[in-house]
């Protein structure tokens, strides 16, 4: 038996909702039955290894790709039928660096972008440009990866969209700028109460922002939950085991990750803490402590879980 990880988020309003979304490239499925649910006002971090389908999911939300099955709703609208209105609500940072026109200067690109987003706030754009230390006179095509990333973030944030979709937003940023950027992002979220959907495989960077976690693997969303649920239900149990210990049959299927040295086990187990501790005790193990995992450890545990 395998522990049923939560894949349904209870929220009064969802900024993003997909149901059974499938996307195929040729014969291969990039996505299969994805039910993504991002509550309004949440900072939802979608983790997964390369090729898990994260970027494809984001492109479907923007209407850049057409799903082969299922339904997509963003701010209550279908991106395929209402793409322009959906994209007007979204600040998007793509994974790829070729975003914008290389023959424009940064300043000209901002002016270009502002025309498309009438809610563009020039004062805020100036503040962001200053914080990101951008040289506005440089051609976009000659920016380094990190500088281009900062421009993308500025483009995404300066019109204060209700929904930010960020695909590897800190990719290419140096540690100082990464910290600065995440600070700006936290400030932005606090100011605007916007919904943020972040795709990343470097989870610790967004630890301080995230309040929801989704886990994607091989085109499927295997788990999604509020951070509070993750904190409460997924814990690392450190226990001493007797010689010849036969394991804890009562926990079959709920152990997400096994580890340990010698007579000490360190298991990440999904379940109610009292229940798990009781089952471990029944098996003869002595539980020393049960600690919640960091977001990154939880993501790694959920990603490495064998079905």
């Amino acid at each position, binding site marked *: 038996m395998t522990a049923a990880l939560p894949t349904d988020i209870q929220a009064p309003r969802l900024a993003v909702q997909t149901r059974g979304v499938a996307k195929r490239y040729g014969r291969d499925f990039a996505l299969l039955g994805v039910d993504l649910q991002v509550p309004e006002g949440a900072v939802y971090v979608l983790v997964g290894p390369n090729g898990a389908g994260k970027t494809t999911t984001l492109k479907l939300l923007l209407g850049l790709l057409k799903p082969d099955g299922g339904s997509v709703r963003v701010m209550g609208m279908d991106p395929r039928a209402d793409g322009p209105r959906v994209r007007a609500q979204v600040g998007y940072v793509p994974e790829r660096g070729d975003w914008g026109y290389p023959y424009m200067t940064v300043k*000209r690109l901002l002016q270009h972008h502002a025309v498309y987003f009438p809610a563009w706030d020039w004062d805020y754009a100036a503040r962001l440009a200053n914080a990101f230390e951008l040289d506005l006179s440089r051609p976009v095509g000659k920016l380094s990866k990190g500088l281009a990333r900062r421009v993308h973030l500025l483009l995404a944030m300066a019109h204060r969209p209700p929904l930010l979709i960020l695909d590897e937003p800190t990719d290419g940023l140096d540690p100082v700028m990464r910290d600065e950027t995440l600070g700006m992002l936290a400030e932005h979220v606090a100011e605007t109460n916007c919904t943020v959907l972040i795709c990343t495989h470097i989870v610790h960077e967004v630890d301080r922002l995230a309040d929801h976690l989704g886990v994607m693997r091989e085109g499927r969303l295997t788990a999604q939950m509020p951070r509070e649920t993750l904190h409460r239900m997924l814990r690392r149990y450190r226990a001493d085991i007797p010689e010849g210990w036969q394991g804890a049959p009562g926990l079959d299927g709920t152990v997400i990750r096994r580890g340990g040295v010698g007579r000490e086990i360190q298991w990440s187990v999904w379940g109610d803490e009292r229940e798990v501790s009781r089952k471990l005790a029944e098996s003869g193990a002595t539980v020393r402590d049960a600690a919640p995992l960091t977001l990154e450890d939880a993501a790694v545990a959920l990603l490495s879980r064998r079905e």
Partner: protein
Amino acid sequence: MELAPPRRAFAAPLAAADRVTTPPPASALALNPAPRLWDVFREQLAAARLALRREAMVAAGLALLLTLLTLMAAMADPGAAAPLTPEDAIPAGAMALLVPMAVWKEEGPRLRGYHHGMPVARSTHAMLRAGAGLVWTLLGVGIYLAWLGALDGGFDGRAPPWQWLAPFVGAAVLYLFGTALTLLASHPWRWVGGAAVAFVALVSMSHVGGLRPLWDTVSYLLSGHMGIQTVLTGDVHDLTIPEWDPYLPVLSTWLKAASLWLAAGVGAFLLAAHRQPES
């Protein structure tokens, strides 16, 4: 460099009272507005001008060189210059086929994510970009004709006024076909180059029996009664007219040919705009 909105009215920032200074609630009730298409078109005009700037500078440099050479030739032989005819606009029309590749530079079908990511319907956005490029193309044809006319010492008075429309219509047709190709093909230059090589090969082998029907078709499409040359120049290739020159301006035929080619160009463009690959 100070960050400020452009001075153009259409891109001006919102008035202070309208500016979003308080956090908009993340609710479907507080949706951000989509842009006005007219604003997008004007911005595309400006963006296309930027995209074409380098090519325009090269063309201007060549024009300067040709002007100097022509002036030197005119000084050597003052009576040699002949007035400009609509036929002289054929090179400008041919260039119109290549302009879309500059308008969409570095935006191959799979690299159009930024363009497609804007809050405008994909096909509409392609039409606005293409429309902006067309405006600059037609302006370029006009400048080319004016420059050539000035260089040649005037326009051919024998050409009826309507015939001066032909280079513009022909350029628009070729621009539309070029845009369709650019929207769909990853390497449009290769297609144009391949077509040119194939044409040269066909010319050299046109006498080969099996290739004769193909050569006749291509020849008709290029310079036949309803061919693209007719659209570009207004001159109709008609051997039944008892003149020494079989090319004569015939308005009704030109209108038919222009309508046919324009419809085909618009059709190809619309098809391409609707069938752009996902990026």
